[in-house]
């Protein structure tokens, strides 16, 4: 029985508030089942006074998007000297920004779909159509459009025809100031959870994602039953090892800590392409990290209780 007590931060004001609240509830219940005393707090104006007054042994950040992943909450926790689970401020900044993470992995020689990132202002100043044409020439179609920051596939779209691009751009830019346009890689989509342990980061079995609609969008992510998950992913031993290596490499190269989830796609030739990394991965009933932990025969609650112990030990 642990005598730890932790504050789980969930909610916030990002577009992913709803998902975050569900993640917070799930991880809190798991931690309680591992004997940890848990309080669930929202990230609002009451947070700092509460942290100062209560000083939990550690904080588990179940905030998704914005403040929870871009290093802001982490900075505040460091200012207050309160240990927390997850990547530190600098790693958050690098990993949170999708193009930065892709660039770092590409520099290290890892495969990631070719991409460009452009803010709205570029299209406005240079004229949208010539820029869109150049994007299509470079990346081809279909093309993946994503907000350059953010998660839960909000604003992300597969664009199959050039005529769909303007509408997709407007939809994407509703979520962020810049668009990450990626060459679309058709293949098996997988998610790999990496957990830090005494022997360094370890990849859990990859989860293969097979959405009924073919697109793992918000609805497919958060409606139970609309996606089939294969654990472990139906990959040959060599490819499974390559997928695990990619996730551990991403975790190390970006300086991540405690837990991360790397999303990747395996193409028809078996090549593994890095898509993005999640610093505060979803922990809901339909999320991939709890699924991977279960697939490894581990306890979600005890894994997170262990991460809390690591966070506390770091602060000593």
């Amino acid at each position: 029985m642990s005598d730890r007590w932790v504050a789980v931060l969930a909610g916030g004001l990002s577009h992913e508030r709803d998902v975050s609240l569900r993640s917070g509830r799930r991880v809190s219940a798991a931690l309680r089942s591992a004997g940890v005393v848990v309080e669930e707090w929202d990230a609002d104006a009451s947070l700092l006074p509460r942290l100062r007054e209560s000083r939990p042994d550690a904080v588990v950040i179940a905030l998704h998007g914005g403040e929870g992943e871009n290093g802001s909450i982490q900075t505040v926790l460091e200012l207050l000297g309160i240990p927390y689970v997850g990547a530190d401020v600098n790693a958050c900044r690098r990993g949170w920004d999708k193009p930065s993470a892709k660039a770092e992995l590409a520099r290290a020689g890892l495969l990631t779909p070719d991409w460009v990132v452009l803010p709205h202002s570029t299209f406005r100043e240079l004229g949208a159509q010539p820029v869109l044409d150049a994007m299509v020439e470079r990346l081809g179609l279909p093309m993946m459009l994503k907000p350059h920051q953010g998660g839960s596939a909000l604003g992300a779209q597969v664009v199959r025809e050039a005529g769909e691009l303007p509408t997709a751009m407007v939809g994407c830019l509703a979520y962020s100031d810049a668009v990450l346009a990626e060459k679309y890689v058709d293949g098996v989509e997988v998610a790999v959870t990496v957990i830090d342990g005494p022997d360094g980061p370890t990849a859990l079995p990859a989860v293969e994602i097979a959405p009924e609609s073919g697109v793992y969008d918000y609805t497919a992510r958060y409606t139970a039953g609309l996606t089939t998950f294969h654990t472990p992913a139906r990959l040959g031993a060599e490819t499974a090892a390559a997928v695990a290596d990619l996730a551990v490499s991403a975790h190390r190269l970006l300086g991540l800590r405690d837990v991360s989830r790397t999303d990747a796609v395996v193409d028809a030739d078996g090549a593994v392409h890095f898509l993005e990394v999640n610093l505060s991965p979803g922990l809901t009933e339909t999320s991939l990290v709890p699924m991977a932990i279960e697939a490894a025969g581990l306890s979600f609650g005890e894994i997170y209780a262990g991460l809390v112990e690591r966070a506390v030990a770091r602060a000593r």
Partner: protein
Amino acid sequence: MTTPGQQPERTGSRSLDPHLRRYAARAGGMTASEVRALFAVASRPEVVSLAGGMPNLAALPLESLSEQVGRIIAEEGLTALQYGSAHGVPLLREQICEVMALEGISGHPDDLVVTVGSQMALDLVTRIFCDPGDIVLAEGPSYVGALGTFASYQAEVRHVVMDADGLVPEALRAALDAAKQAGRRVKFLYTIPNFNNPAGVTMAVARRAEVLDICAAHDVLVVEDNPYGLLGFDGQVYPALRSMDRDNVIYLGSFSKTFASGLRVGWALAPHAVREKLVLAAESAALCAPTLNQMVVSRYLATHDWKGQIKSFQTMYRERRDALISGLEQHMPAGCSWTNPDGGFFVWMTVPEGVDTKAMQPRAVTARVAYVPGTGFYADGFGSRQMRLSFCYPPPERISEGVRRLAGVLAQEIDLLNTFGPTTSRSLTGPQTPSPDTA
């Protein structure tokens, strides 16, 4: 042998919902949606929500109500806490008839069924009248909760256009003729004639008889939903459709907007033969509406100046309407237009061509203002250029601030459109189920 922390491995192919193949076809549209997820942010106090249709209850006499509820438990607890008749508490049914008399309705308490809000009444009416594939006519736009109910019974909704005087009779006639020519069966016209949710317009009195005549001539029932009828800002009351035709109109009423939405007390007044079926349907759906809540409403009507309370609501909502309209006039860019309701909770705004209000919603949430995109109020994907703005809940100064923020959001969206050109709407796959944020 397992070490601590180890569990049996859960590997293989998994669908996270093992019941997936068991669901009825009508559950097909019940999925997670980005729109609903964004409303989780809208409920935060940092956000000015012009989205929610929640009545403002701050003016209710809570202390006195508390005393009355205590007395009900003390004096009539064994009745209040017991099952009641599916028909409803008799005294309350008599009192409801007095309420309806304000709008010219002379109903008999026996023809009235008390329900869990008028939402349940609508569900019961749809249940007893609609087979899958039947057509229901509804104003375009129409109440999102009604569209959800019709979808759950697999009825097909066809919208009838409105103008500043409400439902357009010629369009109604054309819709009925078109259905007839196609050999399709129209079961009823669903209408919110007063201070329409979401459009904010009121059916002109001169049109009411014509609408009733058209429906009667086509042998189509009228379902009149009237939750806002007593909330005319100048105290004006329009004659209910039911007051003009007692045989072909089912009237749905509610205390949610004039008293307390949380009590969930509404009703249906139906022609005698229909009422028998409604009672049986109510019994199978819920056994009865909560007895205690019915008695609280009854006691409130008997002991409080409820008409005076409604007057104070009228004043409060008029001030809020004024704040919203004034803000729109001051801040909205060219190309926007809106309705100017003389009662109820809602303004319906049309934005410049090319703007998709659903696609814009995340930007609004970032700017800490919320509205309901227009597509939610149509069953057929229309409404992408519209939004519903509600003025019922936030105080006037917050409404003004919300409109200022919304204008900024719209300016940014127009800037995007100037860059990328008009967009094609990504329409919803069907009506969203109602929630307190959108009801």
